């Protein structure tokens, strides 16, 4: 009898332990950092000298994903291309941006630093690079209802597990020559939900995609706004100087302002003539 009870306890223990292995992980993290890429193994802050950054419109812009980390595994190729296209679109339509190049991921070396960035910029003839990075953290918790998973049926119908997914998509725009961060913009999101044990993986995966989409939707207007702010800032900030590119085309333009001056001069000439 004692052996039977002992056997049953062992069996139950093994069964429970097995059930525990079904439970979702405690969380997940996907991260890619522009800082890790540009300043690998940096133990001291970068020694940036105060220099004047020259902006020579029309500026050629490159867009790239930050290499390294495990974040890229969390995105499908379609999602990556969609993000690149949307960022590219947000840079287009400005006369001071001459061209936008998508930098292939193969050209970006993990922890390559500015050396790698300069090589790629020279290769593709871009002066400014927008580095896209993506951080997503998923927290998983069980609630009181998860007790009902022991009924087995509950594992399919009871939402005993909760997830909290926090996402940040960041675009940092660097001047390659001066290594200066020109501007940055970020989009964030938080998606919370619950799922049954059996459907947890599927639902949390969908929630991660949803969180990513929300963050990107927030990033794009922020990026446009940051670009406009930067455009205004370089006109007044002495750290930036706008110069014409060697070989630029120039036009004599009287413009609306000049025409107003010409009309005032005509008015004076007519008045003087009448009086004389």
């Amino acid at each position, binding site marked *: 009898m004692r052996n039977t009870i002992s056997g049953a306890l062992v069996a139950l223990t093994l069964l429970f332990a097995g059930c525990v292995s079904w439970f979702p992980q405690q969380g997940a993290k996907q991260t890619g950092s522009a800082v890790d890429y540009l300043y690998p193994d940096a133990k001291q802050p970068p020694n940036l000298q105060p220099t004047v950054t020259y902006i020579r419109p029309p500026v050629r812009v490159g867009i790239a994903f930050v290499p390294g980390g495990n974040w890229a595994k969390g995105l499908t190729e379609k999602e990556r291309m969609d993000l690149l296209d949307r960022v590219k679109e947000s840079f287009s339509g400005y006369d001071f941006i001459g061209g936008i190049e998508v930098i292939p991921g193969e050209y970006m070396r993990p922890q390559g630093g500015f050396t790698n960035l300069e090589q790629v910029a020279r290769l593709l003839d871009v002066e400014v690079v927008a580095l896209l990075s993506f951080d997503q953290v998923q927290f998983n918790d069980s609630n009181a209802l998860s007790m009902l998973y022991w009924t087995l049926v509950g594992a399919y119908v009871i939402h005993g597990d909760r997830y909290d997914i926090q996402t940040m998509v960041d675009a940092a725009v660097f001047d390659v020559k001066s290594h200066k961060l020109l501007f940055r913009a970020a989009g964030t999101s938080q998606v919370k939900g619950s799922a049954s044990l059996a459907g947890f993986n599927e639902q949390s995966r969908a929630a991660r995609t949803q969180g990513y989409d929300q963050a990107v939707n927030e990033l794009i207007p922020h990026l446009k706004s940051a670009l406009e702010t930067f455009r205004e800032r370089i*006109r007044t900030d002495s750290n930036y100087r706008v110069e014409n590119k060697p070989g630029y*085309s120039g036009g004599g333009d009287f413009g609306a*302002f000049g025409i107003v001056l010409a009309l005032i001069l*005509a008015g*004076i000439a007519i008045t003087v*003539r009448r009086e*004389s």
Partner: protein
Amino acid sequence: MRTTITLLIACGALAFAPDSVIESLSWDRLALMHGEVWRLWTGHVIHFSSTHAATDIFALAIVGAIAERELGSRAIRILLLAGAPLISLALVVTAPGLAEYRGASAIAALLGTAAGLQLWRRAPAARVLLGCITLLAIAKTALDFTGHLTHASSLPAGIHVAWQAHLAAVIVAVTFAQRMQSSPWTSLPDGFPMHLQPPTTLTSDDGPSRRGDTHAHYHLS
């Protein structure tokens, strides 16, 4: 008005010229270095787009009419023939990165400044207004330099305002005005403006004049 009208017709006709013609006439640094000197003049009568041409032609019509009336046809012909290449050469020196230039605004600025200086001389009462125009013109050049007037520009995207051309035009016009005061070449029998007053600034060797009197000989005293 013949000179101004001729200039306007040239600008208008060339606005619709084939690209090959336009490219052979534009101010092009490399082509100039290879001896294509006609570009020193022709670069001022061609444009980057029809909008650019229309804006410059409109401005040129206004200031050309004033200048021709104030200074006479012959004077503005001399001013244009001598001033246009000087402005072009000034661009070679002052805008080393400039590869190509088109536009009539510099010669419009040249004629406008010359006309303004003549009005300044003969109408002291208008000097306050003329001074205001000068300040506004300086402000426009400063805004062109800093790029704050791009939204009011008629230039296509990617083409920058060559403000150096306007500045050179003003300098040439001021020099011309000074020369005009002291040089006998300003004897202007051909289309010389009959209203040019006051008499204290002009003397007539041949007595009272009338329009079209080609024998009247004037010079600035």
